[in-house]
């Protein structure tokens, strides 16, 4: 008459306990400290620090550039994944390996390299300067750095789904009378959407937290090209721990909120095609 239910997969209790403990230690504890530190400021002081004009400008830049970069990656990353999966050409393996470089490279190195290339004296910066376009030390430069570091996320999430998608699906659409455009809009895009949104969310999350590659290319001018992570560093260097934690908490809350929305969106688009 045991009240314990027996499961086909044993060890649920142990596994769940371990997961919760581990997540608490690694994720929740540092976050709680952040919240605790900020709470010691008192609401008025916190609001003053978190909503200073300089801080507001940095939020706009950080989240705006991250969103723009993730959006660009959504499109370009899907195209790269498409080419890697659908076509066979010499050097494909090399291209495939190149996609992971932004993962592996120390971000400071990426930042230095991008700055060198895009600076008015660089290979790409020079022709751009002749056209009257400056990239380095502008928000555009920041977005480019974020696109660079976020690229692998979309490619690597979309790639397996695409590889799994039989070419027959497209043939079926064509025989049923769909034009190429109708096939893309009605068949391919909705099928790839859940994976693409996941890739977008990862690229976005990574871009919000990015620091190393941005500091070199942004110029870090307050109110113009200063991202929030850098502003936090500046506060810390001035021993303004309270100011740093206030900014940190704002980033935490906003990022969490946005990722939650993206997750819901993704869950919704996935539910539409998988059994419930």
């Amino acid at each position: 008459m045991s009240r314990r239910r027996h499961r086909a997969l044993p060890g649920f209790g142990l596994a769940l306990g371990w997961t919760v403990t581990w997540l608490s230690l690694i994720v929740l504890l540092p976050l709680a400290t952040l919240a605790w530190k900020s709470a010691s400021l008192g609401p008025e002081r916190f609001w003053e620090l978190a909503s200073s004009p300089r801080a507001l400008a940095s939020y706009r830049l950080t989240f705006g550039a991250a969103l723009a970069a993730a959006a660009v990656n959504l499109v370009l990353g899907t195209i790269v994944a498409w080419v890697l999966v659908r076509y066979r050409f010499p050097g494909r393996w090399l291209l495939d390996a190149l996609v992971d470089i932004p993962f592996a490279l120390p971000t400071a190195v990426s930042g230095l390299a991008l700055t060198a290339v895009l600076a008015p004296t660089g290979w790409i910066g020079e022709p751009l300067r002749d056209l009257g376009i400056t990239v380095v030390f502008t928000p555009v430069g920041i977005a480019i750095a974020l696109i660079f570091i976020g690229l692998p996320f979309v490619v690597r999430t979309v790639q397996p789904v695409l590889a799994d998608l039989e070419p027959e699906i497209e043939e079926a659409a064509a025989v049923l009378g769909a034009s190429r455009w109708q096939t893309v809009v009605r068949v391919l895009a909705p099928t790839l959407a859940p994976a693409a949104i996941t890739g977008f969310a990862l690229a976005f999350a990574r871009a919000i937290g990015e620091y190393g590659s941005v500091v070199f290319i942004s110029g870090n001018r307050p109110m113009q090209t200063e991202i929030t992570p850098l502003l936090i560093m500046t506060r810390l260097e001035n021993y303004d721990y309270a100011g740093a934690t206030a900014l940190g908490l704002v980033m935490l809350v906003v990022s969490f909120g946005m990722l939650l929305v993206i997750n819901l969106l993704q869950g919704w688009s996935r539910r539409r095609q998988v059994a419930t």
Partner: protein
Amino acid sequence: MTITVDHVSRRFGAFAALDDVSLEIPGGGLVALLGPSGSGKTTLLRILAGLDRPDSGRVIHDGSDLLDRPARERDVGLVFQHYALFRHLDVFENIAFALRVRKRPRAEVRARVEELLRLIQLDGLDRRMPSQLSGGQRQRVALARALAAAPRILLLDEPFGALDAQVRQELRLWLRRLHDEMHVTTVFVTHDQEEAFEVADQVVIMDRGRIVQVGTPAEVFDHPASDFVLRFLGQVNVLGATVAHGQARVGALSLAAPDLPGDERPARVYVRPHELELALSEGPELAPARVVRLTPLGAALRVEVDAGELGRLQAELDRGRAADLGLRAGQEVWIGFRRARVFAEDGRAAA
């Protein structure tokens, strides 16, 4: 409307997938393209669908060359072996796809899809996703999807290949009934001769990019044009022989081979298991053998015999006859050929 395949060839590098193929597919008929893998049957189907182009030749249908039009303008329905359903769309929207891309009015789409759902006996499952259906149900949805826009030609590529034996059997009969109701010109590809015989009016047997025989199931089974066709259409005993002046010799037995006059040369004798005679006592044109193994196969009994220099042979006889003979393993019996076909080793001449 008859489809005329006119001298169509298709090469993939050095491999000739279709080698100068010509074929008439009667309008409203149900034709099976039957052959082993690599025989070109799927290539021909894909050319009809517009998913592949021949290097040369024409495909005439309704007074124009089908090859002039891309797949989406051909008005064909195509069913794939692995269904190829749109996994992000439910059953209703899968079937409605061809109508949606043609921008038909909502009411018409709804009426047509509901009609097809009844036809495939899946009414009530219209909001299921493909992942929630069994293999047989998915293939029925794929068929309904192919039929939605009322195609002039229906093409099926090994449509039952991925299903288990019982479902396959049901769907074959169902497809045959469906065709009898709708009379849409239908071409289907299979490597399973039983399936081809059961479903099709006409069987087109292909081998290495060429058509080797066209006919009704009875015609091709009873009068195979070559030893390839004979061997491909079901189990057969093959015996080495020599043939001279219209007479073939297999061990101590001799057979008439009037189509093979001329001097002595090697030949092969083909005997289907049900054409092998078993007797308990010696007689003219009988050879001694020993029963090795008895296997019941439904109403028939398969008897494997060891006929000495003729080798191991398979015979099939009905259970009643087997009981009369009182067969058991190890028994000495006599075998003869009720019917046999002789082909010279070099090719086509038959007896």
